[in-house]
């Protein structure tokens, strides 16, 4: 029996990501890639419509809530949701789970699209990094990024209402950088240490891109 167990755990590590995505109810959830990442990779690599549909069901109501939070009326918020989800489909090739969880990637698309619509032109964004197409996916790094995102969510949950409101305002684009830096007196230590840890991981990952 022991050998069978070992085989299973070895096989788990080499499972293709699309299969991992279907294993929703296993007990060691935290050791596996999230459904969202698996869906996004299926969209990126195979143009998988079922996976895109699942992503839509997960993110569209959250995006709508997020956009309406800053006072956008419902019908306009839906236009943004539509625009963002189409951009997710069209730019799927740029998704890199070694550097961003799906939620963070979609967050940036949503902010960029909202600014572009207001300004009626594309805002300048940093040059895209492209990984060597021959590079093998690094499951450990992908997992580390997801765990980091989970811990950030956990840290957010520990904030009181007014702290949470300030963080939300900052990331919904309602505070200037001067206003954000003036908030340093707030007890947001957990968030900041999480950002620092996330940063260390990302910096390590980005070393591979340095020329």
């Amino acid at each position: 029996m022991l050998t069978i167990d070992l085989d299973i755990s070895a096989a788990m590590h080499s499972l293709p990501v699309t299969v991992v995505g279907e294993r929703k109810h296993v007990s060691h959830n935290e050791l596996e890639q999230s459904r969202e990442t698996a869906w996004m990779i299926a969209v990126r690599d195979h143009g998988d419509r079922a996976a895109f549909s699942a992503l839509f069901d997960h993110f569209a109501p959250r995006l709508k809530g997020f956009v309406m939070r800053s006072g956008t009326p419902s019908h306009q918020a839906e236009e943004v949701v539509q625009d963002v989800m189409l951009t997710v489909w069209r730019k799927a090739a740029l998704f890199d789970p070694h550097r961003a969880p799906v939620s963070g990637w979609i967050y940036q698309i949503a902010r960029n699209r909202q600014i572009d619509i207001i300004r009626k032109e594309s805002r300048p964004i940093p040059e895209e990094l492209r990984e060597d197409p021959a590079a093998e996916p690094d499951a450990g790094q992908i997992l580390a990024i997801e765990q980091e995102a989970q811990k950030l969510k956990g840290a957010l949950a520990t904030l009181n209402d007014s702290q949470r409101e300030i963080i939300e305002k900052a990331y919904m684009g309602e505070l200037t950088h001067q206003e954000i830096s003036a908030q340093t007196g707030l007890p947001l230590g957990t968030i900041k240490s999480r950002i620092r840890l996330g940063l260390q991981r990302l910096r390590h990952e980005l070393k591979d891109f340095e020329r």
Partner: protein
Amino acid sequence: MSTISHHIPDSMLAAYAAGNVPAPFGAVIASHVSLCPTCRAALEAHQMLGGAILETADEVSVSRTLKSDVLSQLDAPVMPKPVFQRSGVFPGPVMQVLKGRAPRWKSLGMGIQQDILMDGDEGSMRLLSIPPGQAVPDHSHSGLELTLVLQGSFSDQTGRFGVGDVEVADEAIEHTPTADEGPLCICLAATDAPLRFNSFLPRLLQPLFRI
């Protein structure tokens, strides 16, 4: 690349991720991030936190037709937006603002040349080319000025700035940036307010040259 020692302040990276910086600053930040893995990692950590906020946003159900509308557009042909690549010393975001053209240098005298790329309500942005040993006229600001070095280097009262370094100067700083010996110093400089000059003549010339 690892020689970059002057970075974008963290609060500004957060505001940039959220889309709340004046357009001229946004272009400088995107350019710096294109050159600086440290700030890219910091920006991506902010995106991750934005994603955590999106992930935990209150869900608002979308109208029933929204998903079918989006799915029906997945195959619609789209005009891909041009992606501007780095060209010589100019990072992709600068090429985007230039719309792919070469800079149109105009002489400011004393061998200094400039090309104004943005000038509007949100501030101004220009490329500056300064010969070695030449000082940019002593000036202070009514707002904030970001200066990113693209070629060569300059020094002023606050330190030395080489390729990729960005100087953040507020109204408290009265400085005289002087190009170091070596190649022409080419900078991308952005302000959120017009510059003021301290000596009489440049002040007269200011409306003329819009520096």
